[in-house]
Structures are given as structure tokens and as C-alpha cells.
């Protein structure tokens, strides 16, 4: 990994059109500004990891239960808005 030191207000260019700027730093962390082309997805790493993790939980969450029974419970709890 390339490691660079930056102070608040200083930037790093990556390739064409991507600029990372350190806006401010304090004891809680750093605020980072990112300029990137619209075609480049930008998100915090933990958001992707949370979605991976939640997808795995979601896929197994019906368990032995019958979806018809589960759906019946939800229809009773909350009138359908369809």
C-alpha cells in the first residue's frame, strides 16, 4: 500500500478525475472530500461489508418457516397497501 502524509486542506489525485481531499482532522477522525466521475462508485468500506453480511443473513432467514404463514402474519399486523 502506498502511504502518504497529508494535512487538512491537502489533496491526492488518483488517475483521471479522482481527487481525495482531507478537509479536517480531529481526535474522532478525518473528514474526507472525494471528487470522482459519476461512473466511479464511492462508499465507505463497511457499508459494502454490511450489505454482504446482511445478504447472507437474509438468504437463510426463512428457516423452516413457511412463507405463506409468515406472509399471513404480516398481512394481519399491517393492512396491505397494494
Amino acid at each position: 500500500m502506498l502511504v502518504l502524509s497529508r494535512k487538512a486542506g491537502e489533496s491526492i489525485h488518483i488517475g483521471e478525475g479522482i481527487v481525495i481531499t482531507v478537509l479536517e482532522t480531529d481526535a474522532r477522525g478525518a473528514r474526507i472530500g472525494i471528487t470522482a466521475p459519476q461512473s466511479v462508485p464511492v462508499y465507505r468500506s463497511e457499508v459494502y461489508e454490511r450489505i454482504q453480511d446482511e445478504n447472507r443473513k437474509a438468504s437463510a432467514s426463512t428457516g423452516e418457516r413457511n412463507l405463506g404463514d409468515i406472509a399471513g402474519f404480516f398481512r394481519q399486523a399491517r393492512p396491505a397497501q397494494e
Partner: protein
Amino acid sequence: MSHILDYRPEDIITFPKGLPGFEQAREFVIYSRAEHAPFHCMANVHDQDLQFILINPLQFQESYDPRIPPHELRELDVKDPRELLLYTLVTFAPELSDSTANLLGPIFINIRTRIGKQIVIDDERYSVRERILR
């Protein structure tokens, strides 16, 4: 669900990159049955044990308005907003009333091209575990 999936080839929805955590699972069929409303079942055609339960998030959170990066819509080749379906994945809790849906990873499906994508949204208004019932 029955153990033999019943579908026609044209029913298949392709997720070119799979889903986060299931990158190899690309071909799914969605079953929408009256007795399963408000849920839908999305089953993998190659591994029928791999199923996701979907709900349209607008059914429980009318104000849901994710900011979708424009290039994501281009990837889905959307020509008309009406050809786009929106779902979220449901995680049923042991106590059903605690069940949640993932509002940071909405699923978009273009019904014309039958291409699907789970879009990662970094939006502090929403979470991966949003309660379906209040």
C-alpha cells in the same frame, strides 16, 4: 416453495455481478403469489436452496427515496422508469415482528432487459436493518 422450480427461460433475471456475498449467483426467478403478499420469493435457478425474500420498500416506508448514482441506471439500460422494479431483501427475525429489510442495498430489476442489480447506497438516512413493522 416446491423443490422443483417451475419457470420458463424468459422468466430468468440475470444479475451480471451476482449479489454482494453471493457473487457467483447470477440467475434468479421471482415468484409473486397472492398467498405470499406482500412478499415475493427470488430463487436461484442453479441452487434452489438459495432464496431471498423480497418486499417493495414503498409498502412499509412510503418516503423511501434512495439516491441512485446515474451510472447505475445506465448499467441497467433504463429507457423508461416504468420498466424498473424496486425491491429490498428481507431478513426474517426469530420473532417475526422484529423482521427487517435492507434499505442500503435496494434491488433494481429492469423488466424489459431482465437485468437485475443490487445497488450499494451509502446514505445515512437508511440502514441495512430497517424494521418492516412499526
